[in-house]
């Protein structure tokens, strides 16, 4: 199915945000925004839900905590209990104080790395991936909205052009996608 994509460029984040607000109010769906830095407040306007990576970080941390606890109990209490200066070595609870530093470190390590890896995978940003921004200037000082005609059945291309003329923009680029 062929599709037409409109790339509407601005040179200011606030201006883009205002234009997006007006377009959305008129029932236009904006599929994507490309920007050199995070535009605060754009997400609810174009309908982007908050990420759930924070929950993942918590779960990874919980995994680390469990692994560290189970591991140290096995190494130090079950498999090879060492008698060091008569310190208790027959129960995990008695010996737990000495295990707190590593439990903490391991929890942090699993949470941080688990989240970072998930973040890169979800973004599909990995070594060697091709860049997908429509214009190289969007990593410098330009801000681009992407509008797909296939996602906007209620308005025609001509109507959309009219709206954009009225709202204003810096550059407009149209691309056919086959």
């Amino acid at each position: 199915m062929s599709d037409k994509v409109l790339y509407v460029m601005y040179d200011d984040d606030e201006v883009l945000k205002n234009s997006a607000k007006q377009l959305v109010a008129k029932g236009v769906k904006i599929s994507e925004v490309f920007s050199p830095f995070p535009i605060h407040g754009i997400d609810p306007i174009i309908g982007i839900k908050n990420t759930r990576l924070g929950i993942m970080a918590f779960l990874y941390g919980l995994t680390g905590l469990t692994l560290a606890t189970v591991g140290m109990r096995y190494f130090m209490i079950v498999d090879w209990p060492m008698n060091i200066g008569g310190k208790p070595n027959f129960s995990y609870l008695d010996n737990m104080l000495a295990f707190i530093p590593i439990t903490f470190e391991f929890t942090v390590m699993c949470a941080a790395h688990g989240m970072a890896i998930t973040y890169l995978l979800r973004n599909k940003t990995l070594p060697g991936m091709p860049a997908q921004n429509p214009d190289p200037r969007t990593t410098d000082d330009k801000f681009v909205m992407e509008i797909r005609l296939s996602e906007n059945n209620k308005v025609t291309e001509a109507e959309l052009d009219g709206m954009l003329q009225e709202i204003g923009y810096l550059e407009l680029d149209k691309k056919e996608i086959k």
Partner: protein
Amino acid sequence: MQKEAAIREPLILGHKTYHDVTEDVCRPIEDKAPKMWYILFGIALVIGLYGVGSILYLLGTGVGVWGLNKTIGWAWDITNFVWWVGIGHAGTLISAVLLLFRQKWRMAINRSAEAMTIFAVFMAGTFPLIHMGRLWVGYWVMPIPNQFGSLWVNFNSPLLWDVFAISTYLSVSLVFWYIGLIPDFATIRDRAKKPLAKKMYGILSFGWSGRAKHWNRFELVSLVLAGLATPLVFSVHSIVSFDFATSVIPGWHTTIFPPYFVAGAVFSGFAMVQTLILIMRKAMGLEAYIHTKHVEYMNIVIMVTGSIVGTAYITELFISWYSGVEYESYAFINRATGPYWWAYWSMMTCNVISPQLMWIRRLRRSLLFTFFISIVVNIGMWFERYVIIVTSIHRDYIPAAWSMHFPSHIDIAIYIGTIGLFFVFFLLFARYFPVLALNEVKTILKGSGQSYKESPDYHKHH
């Protein structure tokens, strides 16, 4: 966009646009390196290689080539380790703790401070590794099933806690740093003209495109990593201090150690950041982004942490007398008046007196004075570790075992060598990496930039 009081000094001087920020940070990477860079790099490389050679000699011959003896079994090795780890505390503190406190001035310095942190922790990690003597069995510190039945590592030992603390700290700092670097690499990639540079920065930028959803995730990941890294910063040096605090040596087994070490680490870390940044801003023309106000903020941190360290020294001294324990009192009297008095008083002068000068506004805003003090502080912090380690053990319980420590030339060469290697890494970073979190700086341009603050509409709009 955040509001900011008009009387607050702007964080970005001059009349910069978003594009100017990109230009200012990327130009030094795209242009040919100045001659000075090659000279410095050459010097650092020679010193670094001399250190590597000395390490190889040590590994081939044995730890006996250090100036250690039966009484003083720990000296420069662990001193250098703690010194480097301490220096490595500023980067993550700046990027994590200051992010949680929403301190916008961190954005100009966090990238280079984090790089400094990572390279410093590399150097720190070298010392325990080569101290093993047989480096190739270094993996024995990991709990890996083995042929000894399985004999596990001792999880009760602070030395093992160190293994986990340092490796977590290094790897989490590295991830934190790189996640922030990805969008900036993308900027360089999209500007690059030469095919090789385009390809390299293309790989480094992981195909970052700046989608709104990605930025949404980016912000949360930065925040959560900061939340995780903040207790990590405090835990790492606490654990390093446990190496001493959990022992039974008078002068070492002090409950005050963890907070005192953490404060000392931040103190020395910020001093190292000042040393590097004062040169870097000049050499790379970043005076508009890293200026007197940033230096002043960092000097205030140095003053506060320096005062904590000073208080800790005096508390330690007082408690050694107040405890009524003869051995404890002796350890401290010996520090101040024994054969290592010069090390003790160097430490006291550099660490207790010099940060107090920062109360004077003119001095803490003077770049030259700051540069001088930053070096003094790091000398003082090296002496602090030397004093704690060597003077506490050189007078053993039996006078027949009393001894002195004289560093061998290998001790000195490895220490100086790590400084060389550190600068090799840092110079490479300054040459090929964006030294300023340029895309993050753009987010504060309108709130804290000079031209926006001075414009007549600034107050109308907000």
